[in-house]
Structures are given as C-alpha cells and as structure tokens.
C-alpha cells in the first residue's frame, strides 16, 4: 500500500514540482497518472519508488515512512518495485539475457535459479527467442518489452512505468498496456504515467490527474 499525505517536492533552484499531493493506492490496483508534460508525473513516480524524497509531507510505502529512512536502507525499499523508465535505460553493451539478469544480480540471485527466472520473464514479454540478441537491434516496441522483462524479473509487488507507450504506435501501445493488465490480474500493483489520456479512457481504472504539480480532485475531472 502506498500513501501520500500532503506531499510537496521542490527541486533546488526550481519551482515546486508537486504541491500538497495526497492519495492512497491499494495493493493490486492499476493506476494511471496523467497530465501534460511537466505536470509532475515523473516526480510522483520517483517519490513512490524512493528515488527522491519529499521536501514536505509523508510518503508511506507498506507503512514505512520513506523520508525517515536512512539513505543506506533506501536501496532495499527500491527492490520492492519494478521500474520501467521513459528512456528504457537498457544496457547496450550486453545481450537481452544479461540485461534482464541485472536486478537478480543486485539481489544476489545467480546460477540456475536466475536462468529460470530470466527466461520466464523474457517468455512473458514474448522475447524468449531473442535472449542472445543485443538490444540495439530490437525495435522500439521490443526494447520497451525488454525493459518490462527486466522490471518484473525479480517479482516485484509494485510495477511502475513512466510513459511506457510514449514512442510506440497504437498497436504496440495496446500490446504493452495488455501486458501490464496481465500483471495486475495476478496481484501486482501497476502504476503507469502517461500524457496520453485517450489511452486511459477505455479502462475503468483509477486515474490520478496532475496539473502543474497539483492533483485535480476526481469530481473536477468531469469527462
């Protein structure tokens, strides 16, 4: 469970990226975070993933207050999340298999157990036959799916994706959203940031709508 209570984030030398944001996300929900670019979507995701700490307010992740935690324990909080970055952040110096292996390496899982999990993750995103391929040779959609495989390989309970369909055409985008839905159906909390409000309209999921760092209350979002 993730709870934001009056959270404000200000970057040094900049305006407030988020102002007094409060919400709760239950385990197993699928949430969209929308808003124009610069509205604070990425900042919100970074606060959830314990990559940034709030300037003011309280961020609770599974009842742990992130701003009270020591910096040295933050990496262990981060491992609860599977992250899909806006720019993939794939490593182009190694093949698909070893890209997906990175989170397991960080968790100290190696050998046969790691191989099993990596192939399962690649299978889930439909890239099992590409494990020896270098990611630079993959298409945009395939790279996105590889990034998802890396995010889910350590079996996180929360999956966070920043603009996962940003650069993809409609068919690919639908594939990716379907993939995320599949993870939600097995109990994973899924949080997706997207500027593409149209893509979310079809779904009956909760939407956090941001405008210039402020959360717009659901009743103001009269469709």
């Amino acid at each position: 469970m993730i709870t934001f209570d009056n959270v404000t984030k200000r970057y040094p030398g900049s305006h407030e990226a988020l102002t007094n944001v409060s919400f709760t996300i239950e385990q197993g929900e699928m949430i969209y975070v929308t808003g124009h670019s610069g509205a604070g979507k990425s900042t919100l995701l970074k606060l959830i993933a314990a990559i940034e700490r709030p300037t003011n307010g309280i961020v609770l992740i599974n009842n742990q207050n992130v701003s009270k935690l020591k910096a040295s324990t933050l990496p262990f909080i981060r491992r609860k999340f599977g992250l899909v970055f806006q720019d993939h952040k794939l490593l182009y110096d190694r093949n698909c298999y070893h890209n997906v292996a990175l989170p397991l390496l960080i968790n100290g899982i190696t050998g046969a157990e790691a191989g099993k999990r990596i192939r399962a993750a690649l299978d889930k995103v439909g890239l099992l036959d590409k494990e020896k391929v270098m990611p630079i040779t993959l298409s945009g959609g395939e790279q996105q799916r590889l990034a998802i495989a890396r995010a889910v390989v350590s079996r996180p309970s929360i999956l966070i994706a920043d603009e996962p369909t940003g650069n993809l055409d409609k068919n690919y985008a639908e594939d990716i959203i379907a993939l995320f839905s599949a993870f939600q159906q097995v109990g994973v909390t899924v949080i997706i940031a997207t500027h593409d409000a149209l893509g979310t309209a079809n779904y009956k999921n909760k939407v956090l709508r941001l405008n210039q760092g402020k959360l717009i209350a659901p009743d103001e979002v009269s469709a």
Partner: protein
Amino acid sequence: MNLWLTQHLQALKLVLARFKNNILGTLLISLAIGVTLALPIILYVVLDNLGGLVSDVKKESHLSVFLKLDHDEPMLQNIKSELEKNTSIKSLQFVSKEDALKQISSASNNEELIDSLEENPLPDAFFIEPILLDSSSVETLKSQISKLEGVEYVQVDDAWIKRLNYLLALGKKAMLVLAILLGFALFAVIGNTIRMQILTQQEEIEVSQLIGATKGFIRRPFLYSGAMYGLFGGLFGLIISCAVILLFNQSLTALAAEYQTNFSLSLPSMLVHVATYIFAITVGLFSAYLAVSKSLFKSFN
C-alpha cells in the same frame, strides 16, 4: 554469509571477465605499476645487502694500541693488566714487535729488505675488540687507553665504516622518500584507471542504483579491480627487480672476485615479497575506493 560470499564471488568473476576482455590494457597498466614498484624494491635490496656487508666487517673492527718504542717491561705489564681489567673490552691480543716483524716478512716476501734493517722499527701493539661498537663507547675506550703511560697512539679502524653507515642511512632515507613519492604515483595511476572504468560503466551504475543496488554492490567490483591491479603490479615489480638483480649479479661477482671477496646481491626476501604485495594491494584498494566514492554518488542520493 552465503549471500555475502555469492556477492563477492560475483564481483570477482565480473572483474576477471573484464580483465580478460582487455588483456593488453590490463598488462600495460600492471607493467607500469610494476616498474614503479621495482625501483624502491631494487634500492632496498641493494641497501640491505650493503648493510649486511657492513655488519660483517663491523664484527672485525677493532682498536689498535701502539706502544712507545722506549717503554719498559713494567709499563707493558701495567698496560696489559689495565686492559684486562677494562670491562668494555671483549678480547685482547698482544703482538710484540718481534712477532709483527716476522708476520710482515712472511707475508710480504721481502725478507732481504727486512734483514737489512738495523733495528726493528715496529712498536709493540695490542689489538682490542670492544664489546660495544657504537662510536661514542669506542671513543670513550680510546681516550681511556690513550691516557695510559707508555701508549703512543690508539687507532680506531672503523672510520670508513662510520662513513659507510652514514651513507647507508642516507640511502635508506632516499629510498623511503622515493617509495612515498612513487606510492602517490601508483595512487594516481590506479585511481585514473578506475575512473576510466567508471565512465565506461556510468549507465550500468545509474540503472543499478535506480533499481536498488546498494553503494557496496556498485563499489565492490571496482575495489576488486584496484586490488587486482595492485596484485598484478606487485607481481610484475618483483619479477622486474629479480631480473635486474640477477643481471647485475654477474658483473658484481666478477668485480668482487677482483677484491678477493665473495659478494653478490641476494634476491628479494620473503618479507620483501609480502610487503610489496600488501603495499600495492592497499594502495590499489584505497585509490579505487576514493575514485568510486568521488565519481558515483555526486548526482544521486
């Protein structure tokens, strides 16, 4: 414990794989470190060997007490008993002027010349080996003996040893300074190499941190790299110094043979080996640690 071991093995494997991928680069850097280490090692071995030579000679060092030519028998007995009573004398040997003349004539094969002398020009002499060999106690002993009646002259035979000792002390200081300066050079070489590696792996480091890698996890492979450079550098340093010493030894033994002595440089001792590895690995670890800490966590908390 098991996880700890796995993580360390992982890091070690990763580092060895990286080294394998870049054998030439690793060799060149290790060689540079080796050359840097070889200089103080060779200097140390030379000084150590010379020091050994000096302490060998020092054991034979003594005072020669020459008596006046016109001393009489009671005077001689008096001197002898005084010397025997002296507690700072280890051994005492009396050589009468007749014995001295005999020794000279038998040693130098010019009996004719010595026969032609009308009277023995040599004095009676005592040869003394003191218990304490440091210069101040030898000086005290010398002045004590000089005061005795009938003593013409006391000669201390270790003046050149004293000078050599000062030179050796100077050499040791020079070696220490050299080792410290070259230690900084090593520090820079290894630190820069690690920094280069960090740059080429910046993306991996960034992603790893984002998905939950601890600082230790990221630092570990680089620390192993630093330690490995130290290890390989130490190995090269010892190989280079052994090779140089063996090369010089051929000429040295030939030279020493001309002086009827048997001198050659010994190869670095076990202690030198261990000290070299410890020094090199410590410098490697330390410079890697600093390089990683400085480069990694600036932009990310």
